[in-house]
């Protein structure tokens, strides 16, 4: 699966795309009247590179291909970012995005594969996605199948004990087909991660657990591209990419603000945020 091949969009064009996605995410959550803008905005740069530079081998024309790569969003509350990417990648109608969180919608408040089979695993109870990803990776390894497993967690959810159980297990099974992405956006529901329960030094901890580790600026598309390319070359052990990110990235009044973890912008706030993003301030 050659990434960054001739057909993949350039990083410059992806930069424009991430601005459009940020606007889309804010409008989706505004329309829903509830949701989690902060963590969606911190994750969107990575998701855009993962999906649009073809590091994730998935095909909208054959979404249930048994050999597709699997992406598990363990931080399920940030699913607006995933819906947005899936829609623009051609997996579901873009118009459907505005049904987020509405009664009868396939776009549930947290990922639900029973309603939307594109979702690889239902998540939302933090700390569980990495174990599911590990099981999928074991399955692929047992079958000697070529597909890869990617799992994105937040930083706050790493406080869950189950994460560390999975972090111990993946290197034991030498899961070179598993990549764990940490969206380290520094803020959780009730405060800063470093105050609630500090994780530092996370990279050292994961390295000590025998993971291949990289820590990068999670809003630098070039750095994300390079990190995913480097991770792909590692096949003898699981790989962690820690994204140093900013919760609410791209909207000045949301950045690193605890209040914007789980609050929808009203129309005025959304307009202001959109104007800022479209003005290209960042």
């Amino acid at each position, binding site marked *: 699966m050659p990434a960054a091949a001739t057909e993949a969009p350039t990083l410059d064009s992806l930069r424009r795309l991430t601005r459009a996605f940020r606007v889309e995410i804010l409008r989706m959550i505004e329309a829903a009247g509830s949701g989690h803008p902060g963590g969606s905005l911190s994750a969107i740069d990575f998701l855009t590179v993962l999906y649009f530079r073809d590091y994730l081998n998935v095909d909208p024309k054959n979404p249930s291909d048994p050999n597709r790569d699997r992406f598990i969003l363990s931080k399920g509350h940030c699913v607006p970012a995933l819906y947005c990417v899936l829609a623009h990648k051609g997996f579901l109608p873009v118009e459907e995005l505005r049904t987020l969180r509405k009664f009868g919608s396939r776009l549930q408040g947290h990922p639900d594969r029973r309603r939307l089979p594109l979702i690889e695993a239902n998540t939302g109870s933090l700390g569980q996605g990495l174990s599911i990803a590990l099981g999928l990776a*074991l399955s692929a390894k047992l079958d000697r199948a070529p597909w890869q497993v990617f799992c994105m967690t937040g930083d706050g959810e790493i406080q869950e004990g189950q994460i560390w159980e999975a972090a111990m297990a993946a290197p034991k099974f030498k899961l070179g087909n598993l990549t764990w992405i940490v969206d380290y956006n520094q803020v959780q529901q009730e405060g800063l991660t470093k105050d609630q329960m500090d994780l530092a030094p996370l990279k050292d901890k994961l390295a000590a657990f025998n993971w291949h580790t990289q820590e990068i600026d999670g809003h630098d598309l070039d750095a994300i591209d390079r990190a995913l390319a480097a991770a792909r070359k590692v096949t003898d052990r699981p790989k962690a990419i820690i994204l140093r990110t900013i919760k609410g990235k791209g909207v000045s009044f949301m950045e690193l603000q605890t209040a914007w973890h789980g609050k929808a912008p009203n129309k005025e706030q959304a307009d202001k945020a959109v104007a800022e993003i479209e003005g290209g301030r960042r």
Partner: protein
Amino acid sequence: MASATTGATRDAFGEKLAELGAAEPRLVVLDADLGGSTRTTAFMKKFPERRFELGIAEQNMIGAAAGLALGGKIPVATSFACFLTGRLETIRVCVAYNRTNVKLVGTHAGIGIGDDGPSQMALEDVAAMRALPGMTVLQPADRAETRQAVEWMVRHDGPVYLRLTRQNVPEIHEPGYRFEFGKLDPLWPKDPEAEPDLPSLAFAPPNGKPRRQAAILATGGVVSNALEAAKDLQSRGFLARVFNVHTLHPIDAEGVVRAARASQRLVTVEDHNLAGGLGSAVAEALAAAGQATPLVRLGLSDFAESGTTEELYAKYGLSASHIVEAALRNLA
């Protein structure tokens, strides 16, 4: 009794699992450092590449099992019943909500485990598991039944919780017994045709005195106590019918109501807390059908203690004499 031999249902589970592994290549087994006790060792020896040791980390084991199921495998995750089902929230999301084809096998159920004491005695696992949408809960009563329940479980597409004993239990089934999922298993009297299946208060026994009927519904390690109680009752001139409830969820509501209509009294017996187990499921079935047959539920309502199985069943009200007493209350 069909056989005087005894054995633990966990033993039959381990043997059957290893046997099924050959014909079912999707079968994989996960353990949390208790595979020797849950009897997965035989599978491990035959299929080492399909058996995963996750260490003392049950939550991750359950999540990994869910992932393996999403990858097309049939994962069997084992531990002591308490440690496995104690990770309820992980089971709720990874298994039930995702509806992954995960088989959870909890051994060492109830106070019947004996010496190890309350921290090792699962007494709330059935209540927790049957509260989860889509979960099937099975508890076989002997080894012959366990072998068939394991086979059913592996073939069934959906989450299953299988509850097994540590202690040896008597073989209660005749050779040729066929496990029928979702149905009460009538164990006693052996020839049900000889017994009137009528809602009559009494029928004329040979000695002319009226005999009244009780139905005893038991599950797991205490089914043999129920059989013993039925024989005792018969010697006193009372007919008690015994049903083995191997399928705890969904319970055979029709069968329960039919048994109730034909009886003056129902008794449920389980090595589990009274809240939420077999007795609760039976009460729900009766209430839903408007069936007002009196019900006595035998089970636990507190943490127990160390001792032998017999000592504990005697102290905590699960021995044959307690069942006899419950069946006779207001009937004699």
